[in-house]
């Protein structure tokens, strides 16, 4: 720091002692009001972060759910994807029935 900066600092710091009584009283009142303020609970300090995380999860769910549904959807209209084992048992029965009828007619 050169002499100009040192002199400027000295000038500015000397200025701090020229504040009038009214201003000092108001500053003191502001300080006491601040000190009387209870510290914020930890969770309130993290509300923006928690809110952001919740929003990110909501957006992810909103985007991924339709994608998941799309993956499960039939590839062609009218062609359902069936995962029920009962359906295949029924299918076997109908195939047997069909073959039996063909055998009896033939």
């Amino acid at each position: 720091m050169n002499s100009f900066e040192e002199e400027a600092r000295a000038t500015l710091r000397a200025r701090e002692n020229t504040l009038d009584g009214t201003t000092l009283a108001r500053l003191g009142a502001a300080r006491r009001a601040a000190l009387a303020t209870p510290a914020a609970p930890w969770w309130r300090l993290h509300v923006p972060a928690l809110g952001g995380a919740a929003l990110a999860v909501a957006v992810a769910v909103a985007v991924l759910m339709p994608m998941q549904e799309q993956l499960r959807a039939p590839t062609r209209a009218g062609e359902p994807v069936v995962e029920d084992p009962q359906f295949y048992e029924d299918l076997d029965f109908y195939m047997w029935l069909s073959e039996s009828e063909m055998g009896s007619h033939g």
Partner: protein
Amino acid sequence: MRADSDGADDSGTGAMDIEAFLRSIERRGFLMARLALGNEDDALDAMQDTMMRLVQRYANRPSAEWRPLFYRMLHNRITDTRRRRAISSRLFGWLERRDDDETQDPLERIADPAALDPGRIAASNETAEALMAAVAALPQRQQQAFMLRCWEGLSTAETATAMGCTEGSVKTHYSRAVHTLRGRLGEHYA
């Protein structure tokens, strides 16, 4: 513990309680805010808000962190006040212009510290007033850098934290500020 009438000393960052810290910083912070905002009431509001936030949010942090945190919040508050004024001026400024037919940029008419003419004050040989006026007339970032580095005595790294920018930016703003001030106030500081 120091009394209210004690001078605002100093930038020691050893362990201290939050009240002692606020006492040590309130005068300097107030003068910086008044210089930046050009208004005593706005400066007091900014100081009270900043002190409250520091107590609420950072009282449990190590005392060495308080100073840069305090100035960061104070300067953010000052910037918010300036923005609000600018918006208010844009919304309602046309009413005033209709009255006085003034075509000057409303931003230039908001804060009046820059209205103090360093040259005129220098002529009256009031060095401190001339310096305050010259600092008030600096661009905002240069003003911040000068107040934090020279007046408050923060390190470059602490100033960067307080200003929310890189150390390189601090050095640039600070050197420009010192260059400008030296040019304007050379006759006062031989």
